[in-house]
């Protein structure tokens, strides 16, 4: 190695401005809102159809996502898949407690055909008996596999602890419940809930937004069905209490999960809370990750993030740690939360987190899929992409005091709701020495 003079870190050039893409929007008489966004980077189009699905029965809704494309009066599963493929396309449905999301993409030239097939399914999905049995069995098997995964089990325990009787408490149906769903349930659910009213279709890609609106209007303007919008009650406030210790005998790691309160995207303190979360554990260069991974080697991929749902938001802290360091890892986690709640962050670490948050906005907007995801997610909270520009201004403006106030209010360990999944026989004693434990 040659000896080189100390080379100094290059400065950043001036920030490029955050510019919003060309877009157009319409709400049709049937209640469907269509947002078309131009991002001509590759000759593709991304499609997201968000349909409100609050309070829908969980097992039937889950099976519906797997059978929506299983046939119409004119086409079989294979016909639908083959015709989508012909235009370079694909479509799939997914569920959360707020909505069903139908996602897909195609070559730009296939947009009209993809929407025609989507419309056919929305109008005329038949839920054929054989396909329903196949798909519900597959889903039941996947649920059984999920139950052997620590990340899933920890999530299940955490949601139950957080939400009690609220619909957010259980987000995966039981395998037996899934096997009991029959085609008639699905047809009824489809008729009751797959409605244009309140739904949002997002199209992003190498498209002329106005022309794309015209195509989508032509294909989905006759989508019918009605029903009053169904809303969830606000999610209940998190109630702190003893740490829930979920036993997984023989586990070589413990899954630590912590839930803390958070505010929705539209709250004036959201930007400050986002920055507080980053400084605590929300990115690699955070206090917590530098501590428990880069200093102590307790864990590989710890993360902390704000999860926004329609009926409420929460901050979720997650780490898989070696069984033998469960206690120390928990202590460091609570310490880092408490430190940020007790003392304002430094100027440099705030600036670093701020730049990261701003950069993430630019990167998130730089792909078709990224823009489609943002536009669809925001639409679910009544927001549009201009939120990105407004949020950037709020991130720029947040002060150390704002961030400290947010941390004091939301990252306080006294408000933490704790779950640890692990080998209880090995970890109970040391975890109990740190916090009260149940059972």
């Amino acid at each position, binding site marked *: *190695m*040659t000896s*080189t003079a100390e*080379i*100094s870190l*290059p*400065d*950043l*050039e001036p*920030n*490029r401005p955050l510019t919003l893409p060309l877009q157009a929007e319409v709400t049709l008489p049937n209640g469907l809102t269509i947002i078309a966004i131009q991002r*001509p*980077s*590759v000759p*593709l189009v991304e499609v997201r159809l968000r349909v409100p699905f609050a309070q829908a029965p969980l097992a039937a809704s889950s099976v519906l996502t797997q059978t929506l*494309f299983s046939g119409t009066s004119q086409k079989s*599963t294979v*016909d*639908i*898949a*083959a015709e989508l*493929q*012909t*235009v*370079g396309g694909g479509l799939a449905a997914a569920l959360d407690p707020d909505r069903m999301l139908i996602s897909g*993409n*195609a*070559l730009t030239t296939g947009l009209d055909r993809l929407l025609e097939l989507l419309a056919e399914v929305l109008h005329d999905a038949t839920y054929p008996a054989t396909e329903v049995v196949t798909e519900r069995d*597959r889903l039941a*098997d996947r649920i*059984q*596999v999920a*139950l*052997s995964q*620590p990340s899933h089990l920890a999530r299940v325990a955490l949601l139950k602890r957080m939400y009690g009787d609220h619909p957010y408490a259980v987000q995966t149906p039981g395998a037996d419940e899934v096997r009991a769903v029959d085609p008639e349930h699905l047809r009824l659910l489809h008729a009751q809930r797959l409605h244009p009213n309140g739904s949002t279709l997002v199209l992003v890609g190498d498209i002329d937004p106005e022309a794309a609106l015209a195509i989508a209007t032509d294909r989905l303007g006759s989508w019918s069905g009605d029903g009053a919008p169904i809303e969830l009650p606000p999610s209940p406030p998190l109630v702190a209490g003893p740490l829930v210790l979920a036993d*997984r005998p023989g*586990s*070589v*790691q413990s899954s630590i999960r912590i839930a803390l309160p958070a505010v929705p995207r539209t709250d004036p303190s959201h930007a400050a809370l986002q920055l507080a979360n980053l400084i605590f554990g929300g*990115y*690699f*260069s955070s206090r917590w990750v*530098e501590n428990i991974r880069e*200093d102590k080697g307790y*864990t*590989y*991929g710890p993360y902390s993030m704000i999860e926004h749902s329609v009926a409420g938001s929460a901050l979720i802290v997650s780490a*898989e*740690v*070696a069984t033998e360091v469960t206690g120390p890892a928990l202590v460091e986690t609570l310490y880092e939360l408490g430190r940020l709640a007790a003392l304002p962050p430094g100027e440099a670490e705030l*600036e670093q987190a701020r730049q*990261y*948050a701003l*950069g993430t906005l*630019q*990167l998130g907007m*730089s*792909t*078709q*899929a990224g823009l489609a995801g943002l536009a669809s997610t925001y639409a679910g909270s009544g927001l549009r992409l201009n939120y990105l520009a407004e949020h950037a201004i709020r991130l720029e403006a947040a002060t150390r005091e704002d961030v400290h106030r947010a941390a004091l209010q939301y990252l306080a360990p006294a408000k933490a709701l704790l779950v640890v999944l692990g080998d209880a026989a090995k970890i109970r004693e040391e975890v109990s020495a740190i916090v009260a434990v149940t059972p």
Partner: protein
Amino acid sequence: MQIPRTHYQVERFTLPNGLRVVLSPDRSAPVIGVAVVYDVGIRSEPEGRTGFAHLFEHLMFQGSANLEKLAHFRYVQGAGGTFNGSTHLDYTDYFETAPSNALERMLFLEADRMRGPRLTEENLANQIDVVKEEIRVNVLNRPYGGFPWLKLPPVMFDSFPNAHDGYGSFTDLEAATVADAAEFFDRYYACGNATVSVAGDFELDYARQLVEKHFGDVPARPAPARPDFDEPDLTGERRKSYVDSLAPLPAVAAAWRVPNPITRFSDYLPYVVLAEVLTDGDAARLVERMVLKDRIVTSVGGYLGFMGEPFEVRDPTAMLLQAHLPPQGSADKVLATIDEELDRLATDGLAAGELARTQARMATHLLRDTDAVLGRALRMAVLELQRANPALLNDLPHLIAEVTADQIREAAATMRPHRRASIEVVPGGGEK
């Protein structure tokens, strides 16, 4: 359906120290992707040091000539960017994506560690712990951990480079020393053994100057000779099984050797398409037959290379098919059905439209993978490293579309049971 073409500008040059450079400007969004790829991977790690290539990748983030530990992460993220690295069979990549005003900073960071990481006992011990936790998360504490990418190579291959566990045994990881790391760096992390690629929002001449400024004085060291890792093809079926104590349901994966992806690219491409004909979506042959009709599997997937990267792998490699089975499912039956479907395809050929629709969908996947500037930078860096042809990225959708039905039949006809290696997961797990 007309397959569209991308027209990414691709500029290649080599610095006097031997570093190969690819620049691909695209001003459509104010972001950049930077990738540095070294021509060393899991196959090159020494016996007794399984997992070392990956462990070393972690050490490349622990400080370098002008940077303290943690500085790399902070400087990337403090510029609004994200970073990572990953270790593959034939290469190791390091990358950042960030707003374009951070371009020079990213180049500085990569150049600095190309001059040499800070290798200390403390950092080594720390990262051995981190890597062990990574292996626990991804392999030891979950069902189907390492299936099939760690479990199938030892069935198919005989030589240490191709057969061993690339994540590494805890014994080998714990035995690693700072001296091992220094030697590994000296041998493999030469700038003559690397490529750097930048895609995104920059002006070509300006980026070229920045690359020359930061990488130009990295000491020249030649690339080590790359061994030929080839092994003879199988002449008889190989089959193994193992009990996964966490898995609740059976699974099976099978692999067949394919032509050299670099030197016989046109013979190799039909296999890339064949994998999709068999498994991409509900209209694909094996999905229709095994998932929807016979219901002997709950999912089936097919891909090229043990890490599923058809255009980033060297010889010897394989086409893989893997399936998850329902309770009491029979791996024998699954393998027999695959044989039957391959035979039918080889004998009767494709249905009308079957190939064209598969190729159209593959074009979408390829275009989508490289929509992000980082995806483009990474693929171009590896294409330069392995093929000296980063502009191949622009051609791939069309090359895929030019594969003929006869080539698919011929490819299917080579996938006979006597050339097959397979591994079966026997469930040992309940619901916990």
